[in-house]
């Protein structure tokens, strides 16, 4: 319904203390794509997601989401834009003072439009979607296991039914069964709602099961972007090293 791409980065450059992390980086993600973002540790994947979220102002270049520039001065438009995004942070980043239930309910309550019963049902729905029990809602973040933190964070990212979902290593720390569930969940959400997903992952199974497109981040820019099978044939040390013998498995 929106002709402009969901994410459009043009010539983005970022450096920390003189050390360039991104240099002239461009990326264009269309609606409905599930993009797997690959790159070595410390290559700037999390930094890229933070730029897309507007948490980090790039030194140069422009970033547009749904055709709206992130530097748009209109406060209302900015806020509505943020509501269309959901982000799963690498470390979970749950509100430590709120219970699991309140963490997921928080963004819903902030809308100030939904009644308590509706919110309660939605929260329990999200909990069930990520495979948690209703009783887990009472726990505090400090009482969760690492994988549970990930799943609660995913449930919170899904709470506002975002159109663009950014996931930073969503399956790291989950057992294979749960990873598979996750792949199915995001896949079915994508089919139902036409979500656009950008996910950082090092897990080949998640990539194989979910991603329609792959973007490779190396040498401070996106060196390859395209459908999975095309990217795998790219001749770059990182790509050949990453897929290596598993190239077949992905195809």
């Amino acid at each position, binding site marked *: 319904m929106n002709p402009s791409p969901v994410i459009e980065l043009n010539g983005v450059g970022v450096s920390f203390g003189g050390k360039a992390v991104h240099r002239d980086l461009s990326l264009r993600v269309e609606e409905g794509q599930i993009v797997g973002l690959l790159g070595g540790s410390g290559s700037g994947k999390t930094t890229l997601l933070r730029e897309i979220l507007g948490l980090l102002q790039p030194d140069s270049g422009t970033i547009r989401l749904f055709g709206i520039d992130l530097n748009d001065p209109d406060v209302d438009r900015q806020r509505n834009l943020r509501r269309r995004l959901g982000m799963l942070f690498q470390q979970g980043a749950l509100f430590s003072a709120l219970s699991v239930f309140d963490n997921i309910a928080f963004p819903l309550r902030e809308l100030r*439009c939904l009644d308590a019963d509706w919110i309660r049902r939605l929260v329990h729905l999200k909990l069930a979607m990520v495979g948690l029990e209703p009783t887990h809602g*009472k726990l505090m973040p400090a009482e969760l296991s690492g994988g549970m933190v990930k799943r609660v964070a995913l449930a919170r990212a899904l709470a506002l*039914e975002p159109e663009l979902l950014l996931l930073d290593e969503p399956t790291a720390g989950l057992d294979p069964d749960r990873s598979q569930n996750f792949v199915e969940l995001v896949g079915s959400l994508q089919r139902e709602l036409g979500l656009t997903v950008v996910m950082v992952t090092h897990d080949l199974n998640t990539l194989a099961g979910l991603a329609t497109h792959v973007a490779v981040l190396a040498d401070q820019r996106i060196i390859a972007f395209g459908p999975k099978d095309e990217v795998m044939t790219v001749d770059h040390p990182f790509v050949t090293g990453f897929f290596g013998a598993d190239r077949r498995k992905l195809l």
Partner: protein
Amino acid sequence: MSTSPRLLVEPGRVVLSGCWTLAEMLPQLAALEAKLVACTSHNDWDLSEITRLDSAAAVLLWRTWGARWPDGLVAAELHRQVLKRVAELPQEIAEQARPRLRFPEMVGALLLKAVGNLLGMIALFGQLLLDAAYLVRHPQDVPWKEFTANVYKAGAQALAVTALVGFLIGVTISYLSALQLKSFGADLFIVNILGISIIRELGPVLVAVLVAGRSGSAMTAQIGVMRVTEEIDVLSTMGISRTIRVVLPKIFGLTVAMPLLVLWTSAVAMFGGMLAALLQLDLSFAYFVDNLPRAVPVANLVIGLSKGVVFGFVIAIVACHFGLHVKPNTESLSASTTSAVVTAITTVILFDAIFAVFTRNIGVP
């Protein structure tokens, strides 16, 4: 393609179309809900023209249908899936009961908490003694670096602010007393008043309040964050005692730094007082300094400095106790830091009163 959610009531059936998602529903939520409520009696629902259906909308529809499938439902398989997820939820979702405290319970809980804190501090004190005994036997384990760092942070870095506050208080007291004394013709007693009040009482208490707010809160926050981020646990797994490495240097550092700060602040406050006396009463510096030892026996200085030692110890032990009992969340961190500062200042005043009672016959000429 239509985007906003729409609801049409045709004879005998309800037709929904458009994009039934939270974002699209929000601008017209009240109207939609009202329309849906009016349709509860219908049994034939046509959802086939819906382009998108998210779980928020599914919950809304499910509630409208009274938590059961309508007999004549037409919907795409994709959307049926979404509805099925909602249908599979348990019907009655218990509300999370929040425990309500009644007044007597609240008093009791507060009392128990206070007793718990007292016991905790006594335990920490005991642990400190054990650690000190251990360090006497293993002098190579004494954390000198941390100790000196704490003396520097709590002492040297506080010199400026304590001097400023001390100077201003000295000027104020001297100025106000001078006005009174002048009217009695008792100008010369300014030395006694300033000397006793600043050296014995104000200097130590003033520094204690400043240090409790400055270093006490910093200690609680630091130890608390180390607990939140599990750094304290890392120390334990490395076989490093958290009390020896983290708590002990803080407590001894502040115990050493405080009397020095008291001496410094009292001196600056006396200087401020002398300055005001010079301007107000024409009392020369030389007269003031000559008469100070006669008006204020040296016992007062000893009392002031020992107060500094005790206050420093109390502030640090309270701060460390609260820091060690921070629960791993931000709310508890802020509550503990507040409690630490409030408790430290209250305890300091309490000890000051005890000092006053037990030294009432000492140092007054």
